[in-house]
């Protein structure tokens, strides 16, 4: 059953309990959350397909560990939004702070504004689409999944990258260790198109993006370092 929850009178703990109790495997429940005012840990640990609209800015860890739920923040999000997301969808209409989508295993994170540093750090399989730009050290040690950046990327993009795919439309301030530019093939354009479409991000053409990936030089032991052992 749809409902509104006003954080001006309620508590984060009660909201999260109600959100988790509201969803079922097949019912699609809509919840509006009012007056978040930068509160932490809103809509965390969701395990069912509830649709949550948070009307305002949120603080740390919003939508952390999300499974199945569709969570929309109508405002900015603080550090670590959608951290460790497993599935579902998290959309932020404004900007996001550090570590957006950190360690996320699955699902889709959409940022309509800009992301500050370390977006998609240690990404483990989720997809991230950023309409604006991402800050320094984004996709650090990212292992799998894709990150589509319609704007620019800051310093040290993809440092120590594993097998995540990075697509950037604008400029890249610098690449991190073991991250290199690779050819954008048709299969990559199809992936970008699909991610842009499912994100609802328009105005960008897949062919405008550049692809970055791992040079895989850090994967294996380098004999030049033998003396260190």
């Amino acid at each position, binding site marked *: 059953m749809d409902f509104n929850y006003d954080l001006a009178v309620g508590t984060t703990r009660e909201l999260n309990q109600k959100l988790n109790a509201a969803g079922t495997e097949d019912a699609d429940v809509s919840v509006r959350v009012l007056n978040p*005012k*930068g*509160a932490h840990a809103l809509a965390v640990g969701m395990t069912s397909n509830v649709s949550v609209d948070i009307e*305002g*800015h949120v*603080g*740390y860890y919003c939508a952390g560990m999300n499974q199945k739920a569709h969570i929309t923040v109508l405002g*900015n999000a*603080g*550090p670590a939004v959608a951290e460790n997301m497993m599935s579902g969808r998290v959309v932020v209409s404004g*900007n996001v*702070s*550090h570590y957006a989508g950190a360690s996320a295993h699955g699902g889709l994170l959409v940022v309509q504004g800009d992301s*500050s*540093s370390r977006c998609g750090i240690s990404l483990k399989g989720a997809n991230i689409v950023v309409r604006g730009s991402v*800050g*320094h050290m984004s996709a650090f040690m990212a292992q799998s999944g894709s990150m589509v950046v319609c704007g620019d990327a800051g310093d040290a993009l993809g440092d120590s990258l594993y097998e995540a795919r990075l697509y950037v439309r604008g400029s890249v301030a610098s690449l991190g260790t073991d991250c290199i530019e690779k050819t954008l093939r048709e299969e990559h354009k199809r992936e970008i198109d699909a991610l842009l479409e499912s994100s609802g991000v328009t105005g960008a053409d897949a062919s405008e993006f550049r692809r970055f990936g791992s040079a895989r030089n850090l994967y294996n032991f380098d004999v030049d370092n033998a003396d260190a052992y």
Partner: protein
Amino acid sequence: MCGIVGLFAKTKSFENELGFHFSKMLEEMTDRGPDSAGCAMYHNVLSDGHIKIVVLSGDLLDSTILADKLSSVFSESSVEDLGSRHLLITVSSEINNVTTWLRTEYPELTVLSAGRSIEIYKEKGLPNKVIEEFSIASMSGSHALGHTRMATESAITTAHSHPFSTGDDVCLVHNGSLSNHNRLRTELQKKGINFSSDNDSEVAAGYLTWRLREGDSIDKALNRALSDLDGFYTFAVGTRDGFAVMRDPIACKPAVISETDDWVAMASEYRAIALLPNANNAPAWEPNPGQVYSWSH
């Protein structure tokens, strides 16, 4: 972890409510720093040639004797007891003359702030306690900086609390930790900068004091700090006319800025800003790493 807040009034009517809104912001940052709290309030500006100094006194100090001794040396002097061992001294003189005299006559006193506008109050305990002890919520002012401290690298005392005075109407609050503070402290001591604690943030304050003494502007001093200070920091610096914000290039420590026609605010977290009037409709953004942001009247 620590909390920082800064509030700057853009209109005269908001200046009258500054203490009220600032107090709410500081209290909201309680769980980022429950060990001690402090405030630099810029208000009651004195005319040219007059200065005010806030000192932290020992328990045994007789403030009437201090007042008598001051008046025998300086003209137009007065001493007001602000509570919690804070004394507000006003005189017609130069800052250096008074602080040198205090250091000789009362070496046990700690100078918390000096200038024509700034007054620093700081104490151990929850922000709410500090706000009540100094009646900060009922103060008017042009701008104010505050800090809630969760101590990580040195003791919890009033002297280790923020804000730190860095010279004439200048102060610093810091969220983060510095790694090269011991060597830097030794170098600054050789240049004549005094320290009253082993706190790393006080070294950053001393660094700014040194650069400002050498003629740098606040912006220039902060830009130079980017290469000389090693560690993590979000700094907020208060000046007679306004304040400046800077984060280190790695920018692990949070900061949010927001602005309306009535105020400019910065805080470690948005929830401190959300309490301000019309915050709902105001743009809010994070300051970029390694970039100085400043406002002045």
